[in-house]
C-alpha cells in the first residue's frame, strides 16, 4: 500500500504544469492611471481610429475612401464595381445604409469617456490633465459630428457606463438633433478653452476646435433654416435657432481667420500655390489640422495610386474622373462662366485647348489632369483619336501617340490631380504618404462668407469670398448671392469630401443628385495643328443615381433598433 501511495504521488507530479501564465502584451489599469504617457498612448488610439479621412475604414488602401466624393457627384470612378460607386446607387432600407456610408464611433467615444474619467481621478500635473481632457473632448466632438450628419439626433453617451447600470440608464433614447449639435459645440468650447494654440503637428489645437466648431455650427444653422420640422426633433432643428448657429459659425471662422496662426497660403504662381497646399501639407500655414502619413514607417495610403493617369502610374491609376457638370462650375480666369465653351463639345467644332482649358481658374488647373496637361515634364494624353495627318507636337514638345492610353480616354476626360505629389514618379501602389488635410483656413473663409450672408452681413460675406478668390488671382465678385457662395465652395473645396455633406445640410441633394444624367467628355486631336474637338457622352454606368427625400437621414437599421426599444428610426425606413 505504501508503494501504491508512492506511485500515486508520482502520478500527480506528472500531471502538473505551471498554469499561471500571462500574455506578454498587457498593461494594468493602475499603471495607466498614474502615467500621463500611457494616457497619451490611449488618446493616440482614439486619433488612430477617429477616421479623419472619410471612408478610410476597412482597408487603408481601399476605394472606400472615395465614397463621399462619389455619392456627392464630385467625380466618379473608373469602374462600377468599386464600392464607392455602389454606395452612390444604393437606396438605403430599414436594414441599414450602405456600409461605406455607415459610421459608428461609439467604441472610440467610450474610450474618450474612459480617458476623461481616468484624468478626473489622476494625480499628475493638472495642466496636462486639463489639456488631455480637452483633447478627448475635441475628438469626441469630431466623432459625434461624423455620426450626427448621417443619422440625425444621436443617443448621447458622455460617460463610460458600468455594466451594472440599470436598463433605464443603458437604454437611453436619441437626443434631439439640436441637443446633439449643442453637445458637440460644448465639447469644442472646452477644446477652445483648454487646448494649446500650438501643438505637435497632427495634434488638436485651439484653432482646430474653432474650425470644427465653425463647421458644426454651420451645419446646424443650415438644417434649422432649410430642413422641414420633424415632430420629434430628431431630424430637425427649430428654425428660430438658425440665426444663432450662423452667428456662432461666423464667429468661430473669424476667430481662425483673424487669429493669425493659420493665414491663407499665398504665392506668385497661382496654380502651384494652390496645388502645393495639398501635397505639401506640413508647413503650409493654412493647414489647421491634418493626418500624417509616412512611407518609411509604413503608414501609407493609395491616393496617388488611384489618381495618377495612365502613362504616369506604376500601379492602379486613372480612377477618379470629373463629370462635365463639375467642369462647368469652374469659371475662366476672367470671371466668365465655366461652361461657356461647352456648346463646342459637339464632335464638330475644332478649338484651341489653351483657350478652352488652360484659361480656367487656377484651382481647376491645380486640381485636375486635363488634355496635354504637363506633369513631370510630359503631357498627359486624353484624346480618343488623332485625326488627319501631321506632326504637331504636344504642349511639352513631345511626339503625340495616335490615341491616349485606354484608362484616360474612355471615361470622364479629366482626372483628379489634387493631393498628388508631382515629384514622385511611378510610385508603387499604396506607398503614398501625402498628409490628409482635415481642417484648413480656406473652408473658414467660405463658412464665414455663407454665415455672414445668411445673417445679412453682406460686406463681410463678399469680403471673405473675394479674399479667397484673390489668393488664386480670380477677379472679385461685385455682388454675392447664396448660389455664388455655394459655387465658390464647390470650386475651392473640390474633391475634399465636403460636397455631399453640404448638399445634405442645404437640402439640395435631391435637386442636384436624383436621377441626374451625368456626362463625360471624349477628346479628339487634330494632328496638323494640335487643335481639339470634343463630344459629351452620357456616362451613368447603366443606371441612374437616386436620392430620395428619406436619404437626407440614413437609417439606424433594424438590428440597431432591436437592441434598444427606446430608439426611434428615421422617417421612411
Amino acid at each position, binding site marked *: 500500500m505504501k508503494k*501504491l501511495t508512492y506511485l500515486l504521488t508520482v*502520478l*500527480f*507530479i*506528472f*500531471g*502538473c*504544469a*505551471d498554469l*499561471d501564465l*500571462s*500574455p506578454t502584451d*498587457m*498593461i*494594468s*489599469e493602475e499603471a*495607466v492611471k498614474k502615467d500621463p504617457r500611457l494616457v497619451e*498612448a*490611449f488618446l493616440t*488610439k482614439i486619433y*488612430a481610429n477617429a477616421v479623419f479621412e472619410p471612408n478610410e475604414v476597412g482597408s487603408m488602401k481601399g476605394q472606400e475612401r472615395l465614397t463621399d466624393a462619389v455619392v456627392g457627384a464630385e467625380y466618379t470612378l*473608373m*469602374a*462600377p*464595381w468599386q464600392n464607392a460607386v*455602389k454606395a452612390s446607387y444604393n*437606396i438605403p432600407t430599414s*436594414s441599414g445604409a450602405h456600409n461605406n456610408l455607415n459610421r*459608428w464611433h*461609439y*467604441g472610440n*467615444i467610450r*474610450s474618450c*469617456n474612459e480617458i476623461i474619467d481616468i484624468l478626473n481621478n489622476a494625480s499628475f500635473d493638472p495642466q496636462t490633465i486639463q489639456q488631455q481632457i480637452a483633447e478627448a473632448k475635441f475628438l469626441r466632438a469630431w466623432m459625434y459630428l461624423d455620426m450626427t450628419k448621417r443619422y440625425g439626433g*444621436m443617443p448621447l*453617451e458622455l460617460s*463610460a457606463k458600468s455594466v451594472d447600470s440599470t436598463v433605464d440608464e*443603458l*437604454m437611453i433614447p436619441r437626443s434631439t438633433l439640436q441637443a446633439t449639435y449643442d453637445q458637440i459645440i460644448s465639447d469644442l468650447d472646452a477644446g477652445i478653452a483648454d487646448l494649446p494654440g500650438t501643438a*505637435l*503637428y*497632427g495634434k488638436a489645437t485651439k484653432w482646430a476646435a474653432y474650425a470644427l466648431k465653425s463647421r458644426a455650427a454651420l451645419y446646424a444653422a443650415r438644417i434649422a433654416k432649410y430642413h422641414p420640422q420633424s415632430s420629434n426633433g430628431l431630424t430637425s432643428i427649430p428654425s428660430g435657432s438658425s440665426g444663432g448657429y450662423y452667428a456662432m459659425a461666423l464667429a468661430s471662422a473669424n476667430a481662425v481667420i483673424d487669429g493669425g496662426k493659420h493665414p491663407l497660403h499665398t504665392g506668385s504662381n497661382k496654380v502651384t500655390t494652390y496645388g502645393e497646399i495639398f501635397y505639401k501639407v506640413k508647413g503650409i500655414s493654412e493647414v489647421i489640422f491634418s*493626418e500624417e502619413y509616412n512611407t518609411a*514607417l509604413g*503608414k501609407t495610403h493609395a491616393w496617388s495610386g488611384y489618381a495618377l493617369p495612365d502613362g504616369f502610374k*506604376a500601379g492602379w491609376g486613372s480612377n477618379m474622373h470629373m463629370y462635365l457638370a463639375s467642369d462647368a462650375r469652374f469659371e475662366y480666369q476672367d470671371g466668365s462662366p465655366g461652361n461657356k465653351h461647352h456648346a463646342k463639345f459637339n464632335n464638330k467644332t475644332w478649338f484651341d485647348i489653351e483657350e478652352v482649358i488652360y484659361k480656367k481658374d487656377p484651382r481647376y488647373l491645380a486640381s485636375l489632369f486635363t488634355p496635354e496637361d504637363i506633369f513631370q515634364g510630359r503631357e498627359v494624353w486624353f484624346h480618343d483619336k488623332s485625326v488627319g495627318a501631321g506632326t504637331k507636337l504636344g504642349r511639352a514638345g513631345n511626339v503625340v501617340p*495616335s490615341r491616349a492610353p485606354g484608362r484616360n*480616354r474612355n471615361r470622364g476626360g479629366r482626372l483628379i490631380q489634387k493631393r498628388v505629389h508631382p515629384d514622385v514618379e*511611378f510610385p*508603387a*501602389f499604396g506607398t503614398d504618404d501625402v498628409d490628409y488635410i482635415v481642417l484648413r483656413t480656406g473652408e473658414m473663409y467660405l463658412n464665414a462668407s455663407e454665415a455672414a450672408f445668411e445673417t445679412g452681413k453682406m460686406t463681410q460675406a463678399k469680403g471673405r469670398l473675394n479674399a479667397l478668390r484673390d489668393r488664386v488671382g480670380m477677379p472679385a465678385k461685385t455682388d454675392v448671392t447664396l448660389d455664388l457662395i455655394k459655387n465658390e465652395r464647390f470650386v475651392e473645396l473640390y474633391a475634399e469630401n465636403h460636397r455631399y455633406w453640404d448638399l445634405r445640410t442645404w437640402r439640395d441633394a435631391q435637386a442636384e443628385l436624383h436621377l441626374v444624367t451625368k456626362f463625360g467628355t471624349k477628346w479628339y486631336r487634330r494632328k496638323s495643328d494640335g487643335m481639339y474637338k470634343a463630344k459629351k457622352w452620357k456616362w451613368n*454606368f*447603366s*443606371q441612374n443615381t437616386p436620392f*430620395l427625400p428619406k436619404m437626407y437621414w440614413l437609417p439606424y437599421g*433594424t438590428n*440597431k433598433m*432591436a*437592441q*434598444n426599444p427606446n430608439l426611434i428610426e428615421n422617417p421612411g425606413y
Partner: protein
Amino acid sequence: MKKLNFLTILIVFVFGIGSLFSQKTITGNVTADGVPLPGVSVIEQGTVNGVNSDFDGNYTITLINENSSLIFSFIGFVTQTVSTSSANIDIAMVEDIAKLEEVVVTGYGSTTKKTLTGAIGTVSSEALTLRPTQNTTELLMGQVAGLSTRQSGSLPGNDSANLSIRNFGSPMVLIDGVESTLGQIDPNDIQSISVLKDAAATIYGARAGNGVILVTTKRGSDAAEGAKFSYHGTTTWSALVTMPKTVNAHQFAELMEENGLGAENEMPEYLDYDTTRKRVYNRITGEDFDGVDWYRTIYKDWTPQKQHNLSARGRSDKIGYFISLGFTDTQSAFRDADYTHNRYNIRSNLDAEFNDNLSARLDISYRQTTLDRANFGIQEMYNRLGTGKPTNLPIFPNPDFASQTGAATPYSPVYMTRKSHSGTRLDRDNNLQASISLKYDVPFIDGLSATASLNMETQTEWNKKVQKKFNMYTYNPLLGEGDAAYVFFGTYQRDMITVDSDRDMELLPKLTLNYENSWDEHALKATFVAESTTFERDYLMGSRTDPLSFEAPYLNYSSEAERNNAEIFSQSARSSYVGRVNYDYKQKYLFEATMRADATARYAVEGRWGYFPSISFGWRISQEDFMKDSPTWNNLKLRASYGLMGNDAVSNFDYLTGYNISSGFYMFDGKPFPIISSAGLANRLVTWETMKIANIGIEGTLWNGGLGFELDVFYRLREDILALPDSDIPFHFGASLPKTNLNSRDNRGFDLMLKHKGKIGNVSYNINPMVSFSRGKYVSWEENILPTDGADGAANATYNNRYVLTGNWDDRQWGYQTNGFFTSQSQIDNHPVDIDGAGNVTLIVGNLIKIDQNGDNLIDWRDQVVIGQGGMPKWNYSTNMGAKYKNWSLDMLWQGATGYTITFGGKASPWSHSGHQSVAKSFAYENRSLRGANGDIEILRAFPPTFTTGGTPQIDQPASDFNRLDAMYLRLKTISLSYNIPKNIVDKIGLTSIQLYLAGSNLLTFDNLGVYSGSYDPEIVSGVGGEGGVDRAYPNNKTLTTGIKIGF
C-alpha cells in the same frame, strides 16, 4: 490482442524456459480448414506462459497450474479457450468473419472489436497505401462512416483537405498519443487509424469535443516473422480536375460592345474589332485574332509526382524495430514549375526488453518539408489570372518583356509565377519529435504495470522571401519593330528581403498505470494517466528593402533605411488526469467508464479545471444462449454511450483586464506614437465549451460475412459557446460585454455502414457502402428576440422570424426568391411591386424580379425567405468496392455528398461580363440573353443580358436564389488495379513479394451543377465562400499512378 500477444511470446521465450515448476505437459496440433496453421499463440490462461505452433501446426506446452485452460489465438481467427482435461488437444481454428479479434486503438490503450463499447471507426494500413497523395488527410476520404473530408485544392504543400467528424468541426488528431496534424505524416508509416466519434473521445477531455482521430505508427513485428524490408515507390501524373473556359477574343469583344464599354477600349491598339463580322483582327496583318486563354497559359497538362518509402521491420532478440525513410516530391501544374514541394520523413520506433519487468520504447521521428517557389500570393495571382483578357497576350513575342492582364492595374499572373521575375520564396519546416517510455510490470501486484514517458517535440518553420520588383509592358507593334513595340506599363512589388522563423517547443511528460485482471467470468481493466503539456512559441522576423544586389540576397546587404523586425512570444500549458475502468461479464455484458480532469492556462483559476466523464455499455446479443448457435448471426452487438467533452480553443487570456499594447501607431510631427487600447471588460469565469454526446449503435454480421452492418445514431449538444452578451446592452454602450459561456447548438444524425463479402467462382469480392447524415440547430442563442405582445407584436414577430436563430436549423441561407428577370422597359414600368425602394426608377432590363412575399408591394428584408442550405454537405456517402482474382485485385472508392448549397457569386456569377474584373466564362457568354435595338430583350436565355453590373443593388448585394444551387455529386475517388507477381517467380529473384499497381483518382465525377459543371468543382466550391473555387484557388487534381511494392 496482437500487442499483448507478441509481448507474451517474448517474455515466455526469454523466461518461460526457466519455469521449472511445471507439472503437466500438453501437446497438440492446430489446423484451419484442415491445413496445419503455424504461428498460433498458445497461452496458459492467467499466466504469461505460452508457446507458438510450429511450421506443421504442432505445439507443446508445459503448464504452471494443473487445472488451467489454454487460449489459442491467431490474427484473423476466433480466439478459443479450451480446458486442459486431456494431455493432447487438437484444435481447428475458425476464421473471424466479424473481425471480432481485430485490435482497435482507443484513447490511452487498445481493445478488441469484440469488447468495444464506443463508436470507433478504423482504417487499416492497406487502405492508406492504395493511392499516393501528397497530403495524408485525403486518404481518410470515404473510409469511415461519419468522417467527411473535402479536398479543397491540390496545391503542393497545402494541407487543404477539410476533415470533420459528423460535421462537428475540426477534430483533434493524435499521432502515437501526441497531438499533431495528419497532413504530413508518411502513410507508409501508419499501422492503423481510429476515429473516435462519440463518448469514446471523452477521454481526451477539453480538446475532444469535435471527436478524435488516433493514428498509430508501425512498430517492430513478431520475431517469428523475421526481418522484413519493404520498398514502396510510385510515380504519379496529375492534372487538374476542372478548368474554367473563358471566352475567346471575338466573344469578349462582342460582350464589351453589348455592355456599352466598347470593344476597342478593351484591347491593345494594334487590334481592332469588326462589328459586322464580329471578329477581332490584327490591324497590321489583317488576320483574325482568336485570343488567348490565360488559364491554359499558366497550367501545363500533366505534372509528375514521386514518392519513395523504404522501411525495415522486425525483431532481434530483445529489440524490436521499425525504421522507415520516406520521400515525396511534388510539382505544381504551373507551367514554369517554379513551385515544388518535397518532404522527407524519417521514423525509428524501437522496443527493448531489459528484464522480466522492465521494457522501454524509443520513438524518434523527423520530418522536413520544403516549399520552393516563386514569390507571389496564390490568392492574388488567381484574382489577377481571372482578369487576363483574351485580347491581350500573356507572353509577348519577346518573352523578356513581362506582360500584364490588360486590366487597369499592372499585374502579371504569368510572370508572378516565375522566380526570375517575382523572386523566390523558400519555406522550410522541420519537425523533430522524440519520445521515450519505460514500462514497469509491478511484480508484487499481478496485472499492474506503470509506464513513464516523456515526449518532446520541436518544430521550426523558417521562411525566406526574396521579393523582386519587375516591370510590366504593353505590346504595340504599331510603334515599331523589336523593343520599340514594348511600352512600360507599371511595376509589381518592390525589392525586399524578409526572413522569418517560428519555433515551437512542446514538452509532454506522462505517467500511466494499467491494471488488468480477470477471474471466473469477470474481466477488469483500469487505467490511470497523469500528463501535462507545456508549449512555447517564438516568432522572429526581420526584413529590409532594396538589397544592393540579388547576387547577395541577405538582410545584411540591404538598405539600412527600412529595417523592420518583430518578435512574438507566446506560451501555454495544460495539466490532465485521466481514469478509465472497463469491466465485462462473460464477454457478454460490457461496461466502460472514463473520467478526465483538464486544466489549462488559458483561463482564470475560477474556470480553469474541467471534468469530463463518460459512460458506455455494450451487450453482445449474439453471445446469449438463444443466439449463440444461430446459423445466421455471426455477431450482434448493441452499444450505448454518453459523455461530456470540451472545446477549449475558444479563448485565450480573456479573463484579464487592462490595456493591450498595439503593434500600430499614429503619427505626430513625423514620429510614430505608440498606441494602447482597453482590453475591454473581462469575465474571470470564462471557460471552455462543453459538448454532451449520446450515441446508440448496433452492429452485426450475418451469413458468414454475407452482410455486416454498423448503425450509429447520435445527438450532440454543444453548450457554453462563448458569446458577447450584447442583447442586454445597446450598441451605443460602446463596449462589448465580456465573452461569456452562453450559447448552445446541437447536431443530430446517423452513420450507417454496410459490408458484403462474397465469392463468385474464383473471384472474391467485397462491397462496403456507407452513408452519414448530420444537421444542426441553434438551441439557444444570445440575440435580440423582440416581444410579440403589445402594439408592435406583429412587426416584432416578423423581425423574429427573419433574424432569430434560436430554435432554428443552422444551415439556412436567407435571400430573395426570384421570378426571372425583366425583359423589357415596359415590364419594369408596369411592375406593381416596388423593388428598389424608389418606384423602380433605378431598374434596368435584366434586373431580377424579386418576389413580394408579404404582399405589401415593396421589396425589403421582410420579403426574404430561406433560399439555400449551408456550405457543408449534410449527407455524405461513399462505397468501397473490391474484387480479387488469383493474383489480381481491383479496388474502387466512390464518394459523394449532397445537402448543401453552392452560390455562384462573384467571378462565377452569370453577370460576370465586366471589362474590369474577371473575364467572362464561356457558359456565361452562351447563356446570356440578347437585347434588341430598343434595349428590350430579343433573345431570351437563362441569364440576363450583359451590362456593367456595378451599382445594381438587385444583383450585387442581397442574396437571391437566381445563382444558387442545391448541389450533389458522386465521384470516383480512387480506382486501382494491382497484381502480385507469383511467389515462385519472386522467390527465384530472392525477394519475398512484389506487387505492381496502377491507380487513378478523381477520374470521373457526376454532379448536378448544370451549366456550371466542368468549370466548377462540387467538392471545392462551397469551401471557398461560394465564390467559385477554381477562380480563387488551385483546383483539385486527378491523378494516374504506377506503383510498386517490394518485400525482401
